[in-house]
């Protein structure tokens, strides 16, 4: 075959394999108008397009909640499972299929209340997956009950007098777990940074934990208005090992900090600030080992290999009559 003949064919092939944004769009989203989830979805779809993730090799796993409807709106494989149980499902998927790109979408109730045990342990396992907690500080789907991240004093259907407990800070908690290897925070109203932060998370080998502050106009209207209106109340974290804000964005959000994501102590301090709201990669450590179970060396376990192993195992337990018998 000559080069001339091959070239157009090859170009055609490239064109075929180019995934467009539409290739990642699933069912029509049913979130409320103005719901922060929509912007996050769009940012993630852009990320998939930019990374050219094969839709069939990509799985979005979620729990139950408004936010957990997310996988339905992607045109990839999706697993919309049980309230709180997205992480262990995703771990099973990843252990079985390291070749798949695994994303987990969970809510503040899903992750930090009913799924707390799984959250803590998922951080500890540090399997290679990208976890987005869409934290709206409320139970959206079940219609306005306080969540573990609800601001102190929030009036909701279950706390008509206002909540009396301090909220959990998901990033502080995550940073407290020794094996945490990637911790970041984003806000739905700066979609460009959602994209960049999730991209950094996706690039990271290990479990990347991204809390996305998400607006719920239905039940917590105006909660972040002050920050949305005043870019000065945002703190952008920049670093060559984290994300680098684009000049355009930097001209709007002037409050920056050069933060080295290797600095865990500073990361903890940043994590505990809620005003200004920090956005960026707080912590990143490439050297934490990923949970790799003793699945045996990476080779082909053909039926014959398996049979061979089994025969050996049976040998261990086999008894052959030594004397007896004979009558």
């Amino acid at each position, binding site marked *: 075959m000559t080069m001339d003949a091959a070239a157009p064919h090859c170009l055609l092939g490239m064109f075929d394999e180019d995934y467009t944004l539409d290739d990642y769009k699933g*069912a029509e989203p049913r979130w409320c108008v103005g719901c922060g989830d929509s912007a996050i979805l769009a940012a993630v779809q852009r990320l998939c397009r930019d990374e050219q993730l094969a839709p069939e090799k990509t799985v979005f796993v979620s729990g139950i909640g408004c936010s957990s409807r997310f996988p339905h709106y992607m045109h990839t494989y999706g697993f919309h499972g049980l309230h709180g149980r997205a992480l262990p499902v995703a771990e099973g998927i990843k252990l079985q299929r390291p070749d798949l790109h695994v994303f987990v979408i969970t809510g503040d109730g899903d992750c930090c209340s009913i799924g707390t045990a799984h959250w803590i342990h998922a951080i500890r396992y540090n399997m290679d997956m990208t976890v987005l907690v869409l934290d709206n500080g409320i139970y959206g789907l079940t219609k306005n009950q306080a969540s573990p991240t609800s601001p102190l004093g929030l009036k909701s259907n279950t706390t008509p007098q206002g909540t009396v407990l301090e909220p959990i800070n998901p990033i502080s908690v995550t940073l407290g777990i020794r094996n945490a290897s990637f911790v970041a925070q984003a806000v739905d109203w700066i979609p460009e940074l959602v994209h960049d932060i999730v991209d950094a998370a996706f690039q990271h080998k290990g479990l990347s934990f991204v809390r996305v502050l998400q607006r719920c106009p239905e039940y917590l209207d105006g909660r972040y208005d002050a920050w949305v209106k005043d870019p000065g109340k945002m703190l952008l974290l920049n670093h060559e090992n984290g994300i680098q804000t684009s000049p355009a964005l930097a001209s709007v959000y002037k409050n920056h900090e050069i933060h080295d994501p290797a600095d865990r102590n500073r990361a903890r301090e940043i994590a505990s600030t809620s005003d200004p709201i920090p956005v960026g990669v707080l912590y990143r450590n490439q050297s934490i080992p990923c949970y790799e179970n003793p699945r045996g060396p990476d080779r082909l376990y053909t039926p014959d290999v398996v049979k061979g192993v089994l025969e050996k195992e049976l040998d261990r337990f086999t008894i052959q009559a030594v004397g007896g018998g004979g009558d």
Partner: protein
Amino acid sequence: MSTQILDETRQPAEDVTNADSSASRADKSRSASRDKDAVILEEHIVEVISDSGEGAQRCGQSFGSIAARMGNGIWTVEIIPAEIQPPARSIAGASGIRIRLASRRVTNGGDEADLIVAFNEQVLLKRVRDNELKPGCIVLIENKWRHDQDAGIAASYAATIDKLIADGHGVHEIPMEEECLRYVDNAKRGKNMFVLGMLSAIYSLDLEAARNQVAFAFAKKSSAVVESNIKLLNAGHEWALENLDMCFRIPPSDVHEPQIVVNGNVSLGLGLMASGMEICAMYPITPATSASHYLSDVFHNVGGAVHQAEDEIAACAFAIGASYAGKCAATITSGPGFALKQETIGLAVMAEIPLVVINVQRGGPSTGLPTKAEQGDLLFACFGGHGDTPNVVMAAADIEDCFYSVIAARKIAETFNTVVVVLTDASLASAQQPYPRPKIDTDWLAPPINQNAVPEGAKPYDWDATTGLANRFIPGQPNGMHCLTGLAHDRMSRVAYEPDINEEGMRSRSLKLAALQKTLKTPLVYGGDEGDMLIVGWGSTKGAIEEAVDRLRADGHKVSSLHLKFLQPMASGIGDVLKRFKRVLTVESNWSDSLDDTIIDEENRRYSELAWLLRARYLVDIDCWSEVRGQPLKPGVIATAIREKLHQKGK
């Protein structure tokens, strides 16, 4: 006594191996000469009981293995105290093992013991209290306590011995420790091997085989340890030959097939590997855990992994994730963990993800009897889910069946894209029984993960109108992208609340059980095809029930039994079998109210679990007999219960 003394001449003594050492020749000629005087038995039940940590279980297991190697049928049952380190010399601390050995194949632990070796009188008293001694039981007991410095101990020992003798037991006081100290410094480590030697002499076992067994049991230890244990074994053997005036022989039957000797949990682990499953997620819980111990040791050799999750919910969700993304996975647990898994099991049923859930049942409810046997989770396994969750339930009947059940479960789970619950229980978990070495068939293995493109237009839930079956799409398959959901969904896996669609999904999932049911064979009746009473059982009680039926039939009763492997769905033809008998009685190891209780009557009686199921399905007035003593059911107890039922008038 069930042991029968046969005509000695029918069983000529034989020279067993052609070992060449002069020592072993000497042993042999002496054994052989004693062999001629050996009392020939069909079977015996032997127990070795000690404080925990004294090695009674290793002794008994080795004893059983040697007997099995010689071709005897055996069944061993571990006697496990509830605490890890109970106080020494305490009744609650009795730790040990029962070995039932016989000429023929043994299917259960039997009734009471014929011979007990006890390391102190307190642990023996536990067995006395539990009525585990046959009348005239032979007792071999460590005699050092008679002269214990603590007067209380010496008195307790003396009183116990006197009482045992008065009760007609044949007591032999043995200077075990004293003898052992001639060979080792610490008799606590090694007395068990001395006892093994004694037992080998008493039961005319081949000493060479015993030495090999000891070498095998201590294979991981240094050669010094092996040597010292063999010394003690020899010493025990020698001592018994010199000092004990008893010698039995249980002629082995004609077994030529190679057998494997494992307990029920190892059998499950082997079955898991042979089924081609690659992931087993679990959270430690007695009595299921040892299956994962075994698997953790070897699973990686076939590319598999045991995942110890943070809890049972996570374990089940993890297995579901693994199944969803590839081959069917398993999760293994016991009652409390099984309860935690219910919501996730429901998800797998709803989303039609294959999953094998093994429940090694223990006594319940709540934390219940963690180390003890019960069959209390049958109805829970069938109906534990909220809403309609048609999952398959099957039960392993014996150690061998643990192996094959898992293989069948994997295949069914993957063929029908649903959950298969396999029930075993504590009585199988640690019991050992030889069974024919499986002939591994690569057809048992799961097929490779399908990564072919899904045909254009195919639907993820394209339920077949007749069978309810649909192909599932596995991540990685081009064109198969869809969002699986635990919400009600249509054929495209879209969330759907429409009444018709909901009913269609319900119907399809339910039809799959019927489709499986069409493939199940009617189980065979044990005994006669019709008669006065049919005993129906399930799970680990099979051997004991059939032995009870044998005894009753030998006495002329028209009693048969039927054992169910599939509890949900049940094979066709069972209703017809039930109708061929005048009465039907389930025998189970779970709670049922007794009509003897004053306020219990036919209108409020709570039946045993299988009885509920059978009554509901077959509209037959089925009675039940059950026990929840935490022990495996005994054939003798079952036979007595059936006899009483047979004598009950009317009904």
